[in-house]
């Protein structure tokens, strides 16, 4: 699965994107955030307040209870400040 990061999530993690192979227990967006934070370092810092992280699956907003797709792009980012 492809993960992409934006704004301070990207800066704290230290990369803009990566490919990951998910362990079988990681099924929801919340699972993914917990698993990534467990990597420590920049991941732990970026995802410390997981509830603040916004997530999009294949370019659509989803909530943290959403199931992850079998394939595609999952994006993690802070609340938007455009407009």
């Amino acid at each position, binding site marked *: 699965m492809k993960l992409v990061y*934006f704004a301070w999530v990207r800066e704290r993690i230290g990369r803009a994107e990566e490919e990951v192979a998910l362990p079988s227990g990681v099924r929801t967006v919340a699972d993914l955030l917990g698993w990534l934070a467990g990597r420590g370092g920049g991941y732990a810092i970026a995802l410390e307040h997981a509830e603040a992280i916004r997530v999009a699956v294949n370019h659509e907003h989803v909530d943290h209870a959403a199931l992850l797709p079998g394939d595609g792009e999952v994006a993690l*980012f802070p*609340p*938007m400040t*455009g407009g």
Partner: protein
Amino acid sequence: MACVPLVHVQAGDFSLAEEVRRLTGGRRDVGAVVTFTGLCRDEGGRLDALELEHYPGMAEAEIGRIAAEAAGRWPLTGLTVIHRFGRIAPGENIVLVVAAASHRRAAFEAADFLMDFLKSRAPFWKKEHAAGEAGVWVEATEKDRDDMKRWQR
């Protein structure tokens, strides 16, 4: 039938006059055009520039969804949304919404709705650059979320 919105996400500037002309030129059924232009402020001289990061692909898709929702909700004759990204200096344009309709209430409400939803749903992030400092990400406010709730029904 709902109008088909025009959506552009671009680094370059836009022309307000040209975008209005695109929705009114040669037509005789448009009675009201409301435009919103968002510009970069220097925050009392503090800011050198804003940097707008965006999520390519999703930015267009999400603005398109918000615009289609507005086009379904109000009887518009035309709707255009342009959002810039990249480095933007004080005084420069950031975002443009143009809503055209037969009657003024639809045009006002659609433009207002678009801006409230763009602020909180379109994947853009602003970083403030001030002289001699590292950039600081703008934080989303409670007010931004409250503004969206005005349109619940």
